[in-house]
């Protein structure tokens, strides 16, 4: 839904990093995107192609690793996923779990050709 502005943010950060490392062309950008972030990877790829057209990032692959939603029970520390049907701990029925993975929106690395 707001993939366009997110991709613009990604491009701004990547351009900074390219300048910092003296890199002119990239093979790929590696992202970690949590499933809780409500971001659609196909939309991101499309927005990326549009926004990088005719720039030095044109043709760079956008590698999106989707991070699953993982909760940790505050009572027994069991980690579990949830399909949204229940957020109770499958081990001890505890409630109000801590969300430990699934909200990431990170640029992990940029990749240059060897």
């Amino acid at each position, binding site marked *: 839904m707001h993939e366009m502005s997110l991709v613009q943010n990604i491009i701004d*950060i990547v351009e900074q*990093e390219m300048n910092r490392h003296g890199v002119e062309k990239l093979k790929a950008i590696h992202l970690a995107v949590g499933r*809780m972030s409500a971001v659609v990877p196909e939309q991101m790829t499309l927005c990326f192609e549009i926004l990088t057209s005719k720039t030095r990032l044109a043709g760079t692959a956008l590698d999106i690793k989707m991070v699953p939603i993982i909760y940790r029970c505050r009572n027994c520390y069991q980690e579990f996923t949830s399909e949204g049907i229940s*957020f109770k701990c499958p081990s001890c029925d505890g409630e*109000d779990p801590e969300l430990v993975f699934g909200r990431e929106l990170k640029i992990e690395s*940029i990749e240059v050709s060897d």
Partner: protein
Amino acid sequence: MKIPVVRNVLEVNDRIADQNREIFDRNNLFVINLMSSPGAGKTSLLEKTIERLKDRVNIGVIEGDIQCSFDAERIAKKGVQAIQINTDGACHLDGNMIREAMNQLDLSALDLLIVENVGNLVCPAEFKVGENMKIMLLSVTEGDDKPLKYPLMFQESRVLIINKIDLLPYVDCSVEKIREGVSQLNRDMIIFEVSCRTGEGLEAWVSWLEEQVKRSKISQN
């Protein structure tokens, strides 16, 4: 060869939001980010809250909508400062939009700033704007399965206001089921049941809000 970056895509927004927060703190201002689906009753709640509170608390409002200034006009009629942001398509408010709007307000004259976000039960939960807390509304006409369907919004918010309780006899909505879903996700969430139309439950909400504004002044000083 991979060059590690490890940077948050939203770092710019987070930085602006943190700066906004510093400005709010310097002005002794308590800020809430009010969110809900379209039509749940955010603006009505604000109108009723302002009516009951404005003689004791100086209130300013930033209104967020995709288009139109109906909401800011409604709020302005209640005698408080209201700034309208039109996002022209963006589905949520972000730190930068709030930065621009807050420059149009006399922050030092305010005790409480309410940001009424774009009607949307998904995206606003992702974006800090510099608030002290997020508060959400859910109206009984939306159904009682919403907590489990929209977990992020319910987990991010400190308060849930269940609105339109006067319509409970006419809809299939169990407040108990809403509470049950909330307790699974966010045990410390504070829940108010209100009707903006009849006034039921509003006193408890307004008293609580006034208490938060007072407490924040004590801790800021």
